[in-house]
């Protein structure tokens, strides 16, 4: 990324700082709020949290518009000894994710029924704010150490949210999630130290230049790339590192499931792993392994989704399949496939997020939401039924919804490089329609079991939240171009950087001088 002083402008910088500061300070504030006994559901904390997240979302929206094109930057000295700087940046790749995160978190809090938080409500809301700060930090960071701190910071609130406010098996699911993620992230830590000692700093631009300047041998690049890839793909639950995800998403509160649906891992692939280790990125074996894992993910996720006992697990496996598309698109590394991958990341966040919130609302009304004890919900909850159908279609990638554009671009952009794999992945699209529609049919239609109690349809608050999702799904489905334009420049920069390193290093060998 180019960091010429001319691009440093005060406004976006302040907004980026505020994007971190508001949820972070808010988290401490909410935790310290008085906890009167009369206010068992923490309505004060809830209102404050919604206010703060509203501010965060407004800031994210403003950032989208005030960052003209390219990047904006905040840069302060931090730990001189390690060459680490407190550096934030907003790029075409991070801006959509920042916007997504800010709005998803806000909507999730509004959607959650206040009476469902029966104990220690202020801590619950404080953790949500901390989680928001962590995720936003991942997208804003332009220094690898800062990125790593935010990456790990995200774990702790999720662990508590799943363990304390989840179902009975929550603590176990939370622990599995943390241990899985830590295996990857600690391997990543070793790689971070290896490259930062080689490059003499931890900011993204120093590290990206390290490969071009030939400070990293091809073997080091491949090993470090693998460490980063494992960390990122464990976190995004790619086959074979996926087993923690369905448990964490269905045992935790809906909000945790939504946060887990934000694909920070594949974002890391695009912003860190690929530009920092270009030789590994274009290595044919690495490509083959990644793309095959992606397609296996698509097929495996779809097939397993067919046999899940409840809708939440179906959506979990559907998101594993979505991730397969993202990985396929990234490993193909063409302009279209990368755009497609970014769009799938974004849209999967929206559709699975919305779906988990919807299913959370159902679970508020029915303790037992397995398919075998459900049926004919569409009659009792018509609005809920319509929304589930829409979200399922978006999830399956129906043209006109947001799910279509991304998957189509991935398949189109990857076809030249991996024709066979793309054909296989297309089967996944068909399977998606099958498992989603079958799930919809079992839940919404057919006879109602006698054991199922009467349920109310969505309340005004719930419907209002869902309306935002509907607008996003249809809006992004019909007109994805504003988002695409945002990403264009960053994606071509990424491709150029990898190509440049490839042409500079691979044939010439030792001559890495004078590249900048």
């Amino acid at each position, binding site marked *: 990324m180019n960091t010429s002083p001319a691009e440093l402008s005060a406004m976006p910088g302040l907004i980026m700082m505020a994007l971190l500061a508001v949820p972070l300070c808010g988290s401490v504030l909410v935790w310290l709020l008085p906890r009167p006994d009369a206010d068992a559901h923490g309505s004060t904390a809830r209102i404050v949290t919604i206010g703060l997240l509203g501010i965060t979302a407004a800031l994210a929206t403003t950032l989208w518009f005030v960052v003209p094109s390219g990047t904006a930057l905040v840069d302060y000295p*931090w730990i001189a000894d390690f060459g680490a700087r407190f550096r934030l940046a907003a790029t075409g790749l991070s801006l959509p994710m920042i916007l997504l995160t800010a709005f998803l978190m806000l909507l999730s809090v509004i959607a959650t029924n206040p009476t469902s938080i029966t104990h220690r409500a202020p801590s619950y809301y404080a953790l949500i704010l901390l989680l928001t700060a962590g995720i936003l930090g991942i997208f804003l960071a332009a220094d690898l150490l800062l990125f790593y*701190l935010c990456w790990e910071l995200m774990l702790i609130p999720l662990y508590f949210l799943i363990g304390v406010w989840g179902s009975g098996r929550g603590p176990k699911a939370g622990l599995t999630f943390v241990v899985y993620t830590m295996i990857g992230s600690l391997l990543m830590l070793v790689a971070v130290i290896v490259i930062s000692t080689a490059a003499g700093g931890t900011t993204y631009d120093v590290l990206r230049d390290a490969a071009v300047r030939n400070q990293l041998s091809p073997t080091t690049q491949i090993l470090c790339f693998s460490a980063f890839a494992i960390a990122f793909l464990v976190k995004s639950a790619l086959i074979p590192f996926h087993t923690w995800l369905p448990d964490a998403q269905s045992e935790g509160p809906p909000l945790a499931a939504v946060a887990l649906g934000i694909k920070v891992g594949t974002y890391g692939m695009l912003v860190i792993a690929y530009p920092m280790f270009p030789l590994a990125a274009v290595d044919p074996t690495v490509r083959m392994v990644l793309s095959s894992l992606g397609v296996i993910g698509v097929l495996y996720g779809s097939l397993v989704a067919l046999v899940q006992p409840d809708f939440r697990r179906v959506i979990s496996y559907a998101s594993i399949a979505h991730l397969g598309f993202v990985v396929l698109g990234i490993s193909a590394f063409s302009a279209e496939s990368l755009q497609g991958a970014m769009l799938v990341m974004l849209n999967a966040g929206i559709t699975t997020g919305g779906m988990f919130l919807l299913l959370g609302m159902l679970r508020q009304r029915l303790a037992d939401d397995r398919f075998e004890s459900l049926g004919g919900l569409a009659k009792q909850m018509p609005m809920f039924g319509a929304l589930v159908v829409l979200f399922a279609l978006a999830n399956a990638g129906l043209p006109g919804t947001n799910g279509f554009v991304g998957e189509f671009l991935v398949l189109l952009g990857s076809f030249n490089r991996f024709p066979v794999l793309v054909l296989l992945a297309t089967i996944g699209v068909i399977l998606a329609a099958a498992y989603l529609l079958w799930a919809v049919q079992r839940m919404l239609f057919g006879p109602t079991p006698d054991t199922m109690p009467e349920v109310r349809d969505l309340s005004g608050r719930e419907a209002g939240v869902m309306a935002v999702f509907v607008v996003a799904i249809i809006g992004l489905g019909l007109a994805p171009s504003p988002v695409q334009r945002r990403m264009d420049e960053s994606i071509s920069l990424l491709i150029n950087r990898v190509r440049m390193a490839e042409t500079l290093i691979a044939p010439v060998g030792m001559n890495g001088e004078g590249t900048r």
Partner: protein
Amino acid sequence: MNPSFQFGSLDLGTLLLPELILSCGAMLVLLYGVFAPEGAASTRRAHLMAIVVTLVTAASAAMLANQSPPLGAATGPLAFDGFRWASVAVILLGVLGTLVMAMEYNEGAALTAAEPPALVLFAATGMLLLVGSRELMLIFLGIELMSLSIYVLTGLDRSRAGSAEAALKYFLLGSFSTGFLLYGMALVYGATGTTNLPEMSTAILRNDLAADPLLIGGMALLFVGFSFKVAAVPFHMWTPDVYEGAPTPYTAFMAAGVKTAAFAAFARILFDGLGPAYASWHYAAWMLAAVTMVVGNVLALVQQNVKRMLAYSSIAHAGYLLVAITSHSSEGVAAIVFYALAYTLATIGAFCVLSIVSGGIEKRTTLADLAGLSRTRPALAASMAVFMLSLLGFPVAGGMGFFAKWFVLRAAISAPAPQTKLAIILVLASVVSAAYYLGVISTMFMKPVDESLTPARPVAPRLTGGVIAVAVLLLLVLGVYPSPAVSWARESTLPMTPGRALSGPAAMQALAPTESPSVLP
């Protein structure tokens, strides 16, 4: 040995000022115990006296640390370098925490006597001597002074069989290991003809002794002796029993102070004295580190008593510190100092929490006693969570612990001979440790209070609570902005003879003054 005890502008009395203040203070506290009436009030006063003595010692050490090193200090029996002052600071921090905790704990456990604080001060004198001397005989003296005091502190609670058992075990095994240490020192002296560390490294280089069987035998025995003191596998068997049996404040003292002091001395002997023989001891340190990390963490997984679990975790941390030693670089020295600080803060804090939760009843330190702590005492539970995450090396929420691990990993990877494999073993062992550290957190936050247990006597935490608050604050602040601690650790240089002297020409190169990176002028 230097025949005159005059080092340029400083005489021996000034060089030993902190140790002298400490030992005189300890004797004063003892005298006070003779004349003061028996009872809780005088116990309290004795502890306060000891705290004041510690603070004065810290001030004197700070004063000395700010002076420029005197002439001749580079070879004399007493070190005058950043490493000594940094280790002294960490040890005194641990002593302060222990004394405050013990003052309130001993009241609860009805251990009224003025001797325990005096013994803590004596042990601290030994520790200071241990980290400050560059002479094997003085190091041995320091170890003995420290160990004998700690043996007594372990068995302080005479009404409890566990305490006496722990003391006896520690004493017998400790004496046994001291024998190894002494024999090792004798062999090293036999091989090199000196007990002075800088002279020793010169002798090894000059006579090309790196592969001398006598020296290797001596080093092997030194390794056994020190491995026992720092609780490295396979010389760790005493640790869990002794940690569990000893009164909680003194367990904290053992975990924090003894470990820091023994590691500092070990590092000084290996880097300053035996540096040229790096090729000979490197593999032993490597294996010791790897086995210690893995075994410590795996055995900690199955512990139900938190003190026992922390004992195994302290074994694992000895392994992490051994990784820094294996790196044999100035980066490794800085890593040891930084790690010791983070580890001391987290360990003292965790034992403070345990001493409050158990209310002076030693049996009440199991995981079940911590269940539901977040409902009964949220602040205490949150602090314990910070300490656990810090020991786990988790960023931000665990604060400084993360940068401690980062520093050790950096030392291993940027070492002259990179220890990447060891770094990977370290991180994988840390993943195992996540399970039991998070187990404590999930017990406190995600389990209901165990109703079958009668609630422990409520203890008003007062000063111990203050220690906890300070530890949490320091850990968290230095976890976000570690630069002050990083530069402080960087200044703690240790004269080091380069260890790449593998054979003839390399040894000659190492002798050249330009090749040694961080020798003090």
